[in-house]
């Protein structure tokens, strides 16, 4: 028994050491540096609470944070509504065609989200597909300018980029569903809507929660999508963290902002995911 234990420890040791150095240590440094002092001369280890004070004092940070959570929550909700019927569709395919529909679902997500975000420029731009079609149909006379560079564009693209992370866990939980339960509900006289609400939906709840956690988390950390499509009104928290490093060189403030984002996201996830164990999010949905 003790030799088995030792073997287990030896096997996990390389990856554990790796993760302690390259995952845990950087996060500890992040938290530590959020209490340091940044100035034009660089960042020094002088302890200060000023970074957090700045965040609390300047209403812009709270505003963008609230906007980030609002956008992420809306994107999560839209993804859920859009993805659930799709997951149901794939789960109810006969096994011969199921793999095909799954591959069709996966294929667009097998490429960088930079590309998947970028495609929305020619979709929504002045000479883009949407404007061209609307003009061809005679619905509008001049191209619409407001399709891009605002919150709406950010929403559409975030749903597009992350919706697989909603569809997949819901599909997995629907696929595991015992068909006898649905038959039983029908035999007992439950209509389709009632069967859905009382049997299918509750049993697919773990998948729904996993999907919500994943999409919300991914959306909260977004940087590329709002930067490229959001314009000035559609910015998210990532877009005020990055300039602390690329523009103003205020590392300590950037760290404090990052810590705030981690705390707020964790808090939201605890509320949202009280019923879902994080391991379940990844293993088997």
């Amino acid at each position, binding site marked *: 028994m003790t030799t088995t234990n030792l073997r287990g420890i030896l096997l996990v040791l390389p*990856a554990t050491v790796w993760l302690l150095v390259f995952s845990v240590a950087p996060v500890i*440094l*992040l938290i530590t540096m959020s209490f340091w002092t940044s100035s034009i001369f660089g960042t020094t280890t002088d302890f200060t609470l000023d970074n957090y004070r700045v965040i609390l004092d300047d209403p812009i940070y709270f505003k963008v944070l609230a906007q980030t959570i609002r956008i992420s929550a809306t994107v999560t909700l839209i993804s859920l509504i859009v993805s659930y019927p799709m997951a*149901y569709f794939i789960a109810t395919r006969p096994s011969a065609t199921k793999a095909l529909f799954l591959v069709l679902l996966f294929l667009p997500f097998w490429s*960088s989200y930079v590309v998947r975000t970028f495609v929305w*420029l020619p979709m929504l731009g002045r000479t883009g597909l949407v404007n061209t079609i609307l003009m061809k149909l005679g619905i509008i006379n001049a191209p619409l300018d407001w399709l891009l560079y605002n919150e709406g564009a950010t929403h559409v693209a975030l749903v597009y980029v992350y919706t697989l992370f909603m569809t997949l866990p819901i599909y997995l939980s629907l696929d595991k569903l015992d*068909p006898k339960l649905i038959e039983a509900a029908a035999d007992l006289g439950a209509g389709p809507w009632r069967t859905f609400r009382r049997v299918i939906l509750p049993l697919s709840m773990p998948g729904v929660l996993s999907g919500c956690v994943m999409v919300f988390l991914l959306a909260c950390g977004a*940087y590329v999508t709002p930067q490229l499509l959001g314009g000035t009104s559609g910015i998210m928290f990532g877009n005020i963290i990055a300039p602390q490093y690329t523009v103003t060189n205020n590392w300590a403030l950037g760290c404090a902002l990052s810590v705030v*984002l981690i705390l707020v996201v964790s808090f939201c996830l605890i509320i949202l995911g009280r019923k879902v164990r994080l391991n379940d999010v990844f293993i088997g949905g």
Partner: protein
Amino acid sequence: MSSIASAENTMKTSSFSLRRTALMVYAAAFYAFLYVPILLLVALSFNDSQITGLPFKAFTLRWYVQVFNSTDMLLAIGSSVVLGILSAFIATTLALLLALGFRHEFPLKGLLMKIILMPVLIPGIVGGVIYLIFFGYGQIPFGLWTTALPVHITWVLPFAFLTLFPRMHGLDRSLEEAAADLGARPSTVFFRIILPIIKPGVVATTMFAFTLSFDEFIRTLFAIGSQRTVPVHLWSLLSDQMAPFLPAVGVIIMMISMIVSLIGFSLSARSNNSIGSY
């Protein structure tokens, strides 16, 4: 495998076929939402026009010629491919050892699981920032092999573990126990029993790991210094201006990841079947 399709068939309600049709139409619309932007990108990559947009003027290959004649672009593709291969191999090896270890009991297993998931759970932008300060503070020179490689390995590792772990867990222990009873050493058991069974799964995981690395952007952006992977190169081009060859760059990136993923997916599907038959 049972599916709820058969149960649906037994629900003979009058509105059944109507709901079925509605679901079909919905699925078609969903796939259109997924594919129209991609097809548009492909079309624009062949469009002989100085602006990235419609109308489609004439067919041309010149944007592809331009991309493949650009040293920066070729260098970025080369860097991304080598980085992807290296991080896929290293991360899959680490993850395989980890998954093997997780079949045993050891102290703090629950805590280790949380540590493994950490790189995935940290919001994307913060995932980039921590490496900028970590390597910056440690005065490690930023570059492909000094900083981007460890970042990619760390990013890919949890996903590799999460795809390997269920396969390892579902493995029938009696084969190994039989081999051990017959006097096989642990290393022999691994190379002669476990590895042949899980090999397709490991290959599939390595390919997924490659595409995860190949497509990674935000962490790389902060960790790579002045060098370029393909997504970072595309980003710097995008931030500059909308150049007419950008759709071609996008299509090339997409093709590389999709082909590798598709191979990985079919291998993985095959390995699932073979494990099921054991």
